[in-house]
């Protein structure tokens, strides 16, 4: 039972319960930083780190925290790891840090992190919680990278900063409206695929 469960914990967040496309959590960074694929990966990695570490820490101390102050306690733990990420990124990836800007401290209020802490880490074992955090983090990163790639491709005709065609793209996809419309269509396609599947099989 244990081994299959672990695999499930890990895979859950990537496809079946993808935080962005299925659960619709953490929309602010999803839309805000995905003007290029690199930004998407950077933001995803930072969030994944916070998810894994906070899930780990919360699973470790869950029995010590009184039930009534559980949410504030979780928030403080998460905020501590976000500060760690913030300081690390300032020191080692200053350019990316500049790009992501405000959205790094805002990981604290990203609903995915607190959501997983409350829904999963506070009632599961340390190892399972870590895997859950990792799965969710990877799912989030993949979603952001996909969104970033599409927007970069349409907006500036380049992929990961490499220009494919020497022409101007549709600027609107780099700007705010492009973020909304791309996510809207991705979710529509996802729903369409899901609805179509049972009829074919």
């Amino acid at each position, binding site marked *: 039972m244990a081994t299959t469960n672990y695999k499930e914990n890990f895979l859950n967040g990537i496809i079946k319960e993808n935080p962005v496309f299925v659960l619709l959590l953490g929309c602010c960074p999803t839309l*805000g930083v995905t003007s290029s694929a690199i930004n998407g990966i950077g933001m995803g990695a930072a969030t994944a780190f916070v998810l894994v570490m906070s899930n780990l820490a919360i699973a470790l101390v869950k029995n010590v925290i009184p039930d009534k102050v559980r949410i504030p306690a979780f*928030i403080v733990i998460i*905020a501590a790891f976000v*500060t760690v990420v*913030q*300081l690390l990124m300032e020191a080692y990836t200053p350019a990316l840090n500049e790009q992501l800007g405000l959205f790094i401290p805002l990981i604290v*209020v*990203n609903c995915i992190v607190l959501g997983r802490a409350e829904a999963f880490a506070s009632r599961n074992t340390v190892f399972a919680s870590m895997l859950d955090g990792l799965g969710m983090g990877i799912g989030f990163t993949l979603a952001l990278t996909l969104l970033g790639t599409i927007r970069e491709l349409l907006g500036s005709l380049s992929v990961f900063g490499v220009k494919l065609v020497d022409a101007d793209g549709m600027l609107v996809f780099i700007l705010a409206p492009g973020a909304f419309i791309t996510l*809207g269509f991705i979710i529509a396609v996802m729903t*369409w695929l899901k609805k179509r599947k049972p009829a074919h099989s």
Partner: protein
Amino acid sequence: MEYLVIIISTIFINNIVLAKFLGICPFLGVSKNTSTAVGMGGAVIFVMVISTIMTYLVQHYILIPLDIAYMQTVTYILVIAFLVQVVEIVLKKVSPDLYQALGVYLPLITTNCTILGVAILVIQNNFNLLESVIFAIGNSVGFTLAIALFSSLREQLDTADLPEYMQGIPAALITASILSMAFMGFAGLV
């Protein structure tokens, strides 16, 4: 004049939801009908102004003198969470009517990233206290305007005949995109 520029730019040009992408969760979550959207907007205006003043004072009189500005994120989120609780308790006692109107939205505000976002932006922009308050008012009014407009659009969407897979969130996101495009028309106003 300078203050007027802050107000106009935060409400229209750099609208916190449609241009800066903060507060998308409540923007999508509590915009199904106009009255709840306006209620949420009111609660955000109320809490954002108070919390911006609080975090400004904490930053300048506690964190900077003690040289622990790197604790910003942890401190701010605690101040905001604490403040939301206090506002809820005080409002319940002092103004039951206002509590009736805003009460249900208050707990949701702790995880509304506009509040923390504005508190941090104020520090990043080196505003003084008065500028900070005006910045907070502008941004929260901008949030309310965006969510109120969006919710009235969504009410219309409910009756629209859409393909099954476009219903709900996808249609809402595409509507938001068009609304955001409309707001881009304000660029260059100041």
